[in-house]
């Protein structure tokens, strides 16, 4: 059977969901004629026409905010932000409108939309084509935030996001677009938002991550296995609302945790995960909850040695795991 890449899984899902539901439409920069800068939306304009695959002007405020309005009158918009780095102009519309619409109207209006955001480093993108910024959205209740690490999850989570009733920030890590591939079921399937996946079982320590960092974590775990360390690896998949139960169950079993995140350490998602584990699972812990994160610098620098220095990798993760094991 043919293996599907993560980006192909996304394209397939857009086709399927637009076929299934004529309320679904796409809007974003270069998504139509050009098929997207990474070709995620290739072929969709030909199939569905310019009314449902809208090439927008360079207007991130409108791409996000116009989609909120379209969702309010009954459509299912899928706006695309070409690079997470350029999402900042949309923040007003995402934070003040999308996230708060249900709340401020007492549930009268809802905002079922899926903002696709291409993100992530290790692609030589430099300061302004490598960012993720998931922590900004993570800290805003009212939004759901997901970041698939596999083609299966890319498809399943995207379907759940499109079919759901809440605004979802769907992060697509560009490093994973063509790097990860797997066979996908023919039949329709979804992956629930809010559920983590235990990718590898283990007894000695728990490694938690998401997105590209899941792959670095599993590499580290496989290397550690050879050295006699049995690591359990959890892929969060959904960053908000995050799956405390799955992580806590693993902590009960292993009593040691390492959290891995690509973005800068300070104010990041894993700071909250760490605080929650410490607050609620302290009795089960045998060592300090530790983190492996991107550097606390403004963004990922361009020159390859600096970029690699910024990013967590399997070696860094393995070293921190061993340190925690020795505690």
């Amino acid at each position, binding site marked *: 059977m043919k293996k599907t890449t993560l980006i192909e899984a996304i394209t397939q899902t857009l086709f399927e969901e637009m076929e299934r539901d004529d309320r679904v*439409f796409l809007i974003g920069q270069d998504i139509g004629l050009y098929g997207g800068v990474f070709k995620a939306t290739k072929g969709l304009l030909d199939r569905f026409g310019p*009314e*449902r695959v809208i090439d*927008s*002007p360079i*207007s991130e*405020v*409108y791409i996000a*905010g*116009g*989609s*909120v*309005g*379209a*969702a*309010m*009158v*009954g*459509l299912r918009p899928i706006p695309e932000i070409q690079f997470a780095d350029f999402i900042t*102009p949309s923040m*007003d*519309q995402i934070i*003040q*409108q999308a996230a*708060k619409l*249900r*709340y*401020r*109207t*007492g*549930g*009268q*209006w*809802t905002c079922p939309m899926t903002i696709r955001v291409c993100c992530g480093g290790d692609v030589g993108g430099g300061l302004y084509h490598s960012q993720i910024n998931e922590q900004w959205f993570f800290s805003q*209740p*009212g939004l*759901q935030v997901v970041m698939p690490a596999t083609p299966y999850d890319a498809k399943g989570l995207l379907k759940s996001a499109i079919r*759901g*009733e*809440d605004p979802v920030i769907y992060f697509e890590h560009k490093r994973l677009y063509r790097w990860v591939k797997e066979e996908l079921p023919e039949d329709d399937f979804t992956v629930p*938002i*809010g559920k983590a996946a235990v990718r590898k079982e283990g007894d000695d320590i728990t490694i938690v991550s998401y997105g590209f960092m899941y792959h670095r974590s599993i590499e580290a775990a496989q290397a550690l296995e050879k050295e006699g360390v049995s690591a359990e690896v959890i892929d969060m998949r959904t960053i908000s*609302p995050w799956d405390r139960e799955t992580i806590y169950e693993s902590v009960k079993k292993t009593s040691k945790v390492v959290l891995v995140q690509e973005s800068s350490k300070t104010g990041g998602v894993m700071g909250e995960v760490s605080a929650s584990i410490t607050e609620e699972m302290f009795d089960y812990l045998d060592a300090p909850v530790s983190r492996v994160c991107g550097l606390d610098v403004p963004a990922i620098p361009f020159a390859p040695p600096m970029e690699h220095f910024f990013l967590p990798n399997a070696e860094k993760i393995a070293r921190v795991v061993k340190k925690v094991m020795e505690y």
Partner: protein
Amino acid sequence: MPATKIAAKPSLKQIGLSKETLLGLYTNLLKTRMLDERFRKLFRQGRFAGTYFSAVGQEATTVGPTYGLRDEDIIAPSHREIGAAVTKGIPLVHIVAQIYARINSPDKGKTHPCHYGWREKGFISPSSTLAGQTVTGTGCAMGFQIQKKDNVVIAFFGEGATARGGWHEAVNYAGIHKLPIIYVCQNNLWAESVPAHRQAGIKDFSDRAKAYGFPGITIDGNDVVLVHKTAAKAIERARNGEGPTLIECKTYRWYGHSEIDPADYRREEEIIEWKKGDPIARAENLLLDLGIHTSKKREAMVEQINQEIDEAVAACEKEKYAEPEEAYNDVYSENFPVRRDDY
């Protein structure tokens, strides 16, 4: 400029509106004014919290365009659109409940005064970020176009909001796609304390439309007949797929930005001059001149509206606030409960 008096006695034919429409416009103006003044009084009496954003003096700019809309048409307001709320048909008791933040408010008390909204009548409860609803409202119009519906959107904002980037992105997009939206700029000369000449290098804010490829028009915003007729034409254009219109209504806010603003940055003569062009008095004089209104009828109307307001206020003051735990609701759809901590 404040409006001048109407010279010769007009006829209904000259006005070009039916008696029913004129009386409808007037009734909504009067109701808006009386409700607004009542809210100011209630706020000063400490009967509700927060603050209050009076629209007294600007009523014609919101009543005029809104009168005659369908329920499915959308109002994308800011915070000074009590006239649109009244005219679109949000029940008085909902409007009062919103101000009082009681459990019977459509928002259950979550958002602060003057942020009215009721989905049944297509009225979006706004965010406070100015021009925020200009963007989402334009999105509603995009939605109607995709759905091939002939509904329209009216986005209201002050001249101050037109300095924002999001406003320009939205208006630009509406121009490209000829969206069914009417942009109504209430130019009350002041963005809180900053005068219009410190907000833009143009005199007429309708000039902004030129850059986006659709008509812009500046009118006397205190002449409800002119506002209504101008908007009706723009609404028809929008329904016919001919695209947006920007209508700048020159008007004036009689009081401060909110009730806690003494507005001492304005000259007293400016206020006096503008009060002479009171939109409610002008509409009333026109109706009297046309012979379709009398001072006796007015007395009866005032009495009836006062009674309606009394009843709504009494009903809301009797209502409870929602339970504090209501704060946990309406964050996500039902399958996603929010984290609750016991402290």
